[in-house]
């Protein structure tokens, strides 16, 4: 089932201007993604955790997200140390673990986790409708925002249609296995999902026409930065400059 577990709340971060949160998240993600020094990355991880604690979210849901990302990270740790050339840090039988690769794996681990946590704290804490409006006010083209909001609106409806189709298939004794019958069944379910989506699109298009749609997208929500927003931007900018400074100082 699709849900937005972090979107609602009344923390200081939830109340902060979504535009500021979005821009902060984007700048922060790029700064972290492009940093290499461990001190800078460690500082970033601390900042992410501070942000997360400000957002006051369900810890269980956060760990679920961390598990997915770190599943991939573990895979990386299993593969790259033994396939990189260079100075060996240690050996397991015929395999020798490259120092360079271990450094890289550690960097990726820190970066992925830091970016993920900040994204949860800053972006996943707004309902998607709000995200769309914030994007629109940040000059993202109308068409793409309209498309995003339309997709968001109907993802739930389509998911329900899919669940209905699967129930209909299951009550007739369908048991998925690795065979052509299974794949054919799924192909028909997916096909039906797309057919229903297209038919609904036509009806929605008609509903829009009936209400005088003039090929223009209007955005009603307006945001105010307020004093909290200004303070947040200042603190966030200072923290980001700090991370950049650590990165540059250590790198040079």
């Amino acid at each position: 089932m699709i849900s937005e577990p972090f979107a609602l709340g009344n923390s200081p971060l939830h109340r902060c201007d979504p535009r500021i949160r979005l821009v902060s998240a984007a700048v922060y993600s790029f700064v972290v993604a492009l940093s290499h020094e461990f001190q800078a990355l460690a500082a970033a991880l601390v900042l992410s955790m501070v942000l997360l604690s400000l957002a006051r979210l369900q810890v269980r849901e956060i760990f679920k997200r961390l598990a997915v990302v770190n599943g991939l990270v573990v895979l990386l740790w299993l593969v790259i140390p033994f396939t990189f050339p260079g100075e060996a840090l240690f050996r397991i039988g015929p395999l020798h673990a490259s120092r360079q690769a271990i450094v890289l794996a550690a960097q990726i681990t820190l970066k992925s986790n830091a970016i993920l946590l900040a994204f949860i704290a800053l972006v996943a804490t707004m309902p998607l409708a709000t995200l769309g409006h914030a994007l629109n006010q940040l000059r993202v083209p109308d068409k793409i925002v309209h498309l995003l909001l339309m997709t968001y609106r109907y993802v739930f409806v389509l998911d329900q249609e899919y669940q209905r189709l699967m129930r209909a298939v299951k009550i007739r004794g369908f048991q998925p296995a690795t065979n052509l019958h299974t794949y054919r069944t799924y192909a028909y379910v997916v096909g039906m999902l797309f057919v229903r989506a297209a038919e609904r699109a036509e009806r929605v298009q008609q509903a829009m026409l009936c209400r005088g749609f003039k090929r223009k997208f209007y955005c009603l929500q307006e945001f105010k930065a307020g004093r909290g927003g200004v303070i947040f931007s200042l603190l966030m900018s200072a923290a980001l400059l700090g991370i950049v400074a650590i990165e540059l100082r250590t790198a040079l």
Partner: protein
Amino acid sequence: MHISEGVLSGPVLLSGAALAAAGTAIGLKKLDYDQIAKAGMLSGAFFVASLIHVPLGPMSVHLIMNGLVGLLLGWAAFPAILVALALQAVFFQFGGITALGVNTTLMALPAVFCYFAFSPLLFHRRPLVVLAAAFGCGFLSVFLSGVIASMALMFTEENFWSVAAMVVAAHVPIMIIEGIVTALCVVFLKKVQPSMLPAYSRKDGL
């Protein structure tokens, strides 16, 4: 298929973003405002389809279906896939802001390629050709996505070849499943609602 945040290098992230922006711009230009509902709905269907897990031996893999989206939307697959990936990032934190461009490119570029390569064959007289084209679309779209993902990894760090090879190898069974599902899906659509395929209106020209 997506690449996580924090893995790729700056130049790769920027090239991915630039390609995605260019593709999306073309897609939006070709997407008339009257088709917003259709593109949004198909983007939603693509999102839901990517949550479907099909069995593969003792494991299960999720469908990708970017080939089919390409067949249905052509260039408009770029904005549609971009939006679906943005939703995935916000809902599940699969991917994020920095890798959104790369992830969009690796899914949407093969979709557009498949549209131009295979949709002219979908209304061929011989059913076997149609089946082969649709299978090729499903298979190749995932294969090319794997190739682009590998390239993104290799350009980041040339020693990533092992990871890149793993990505492609792990997707071989998925390519076959996608090929089969896409082929049967096209057969289904041709029977039930052929007008959904853009190639339908041009079939007389073939």
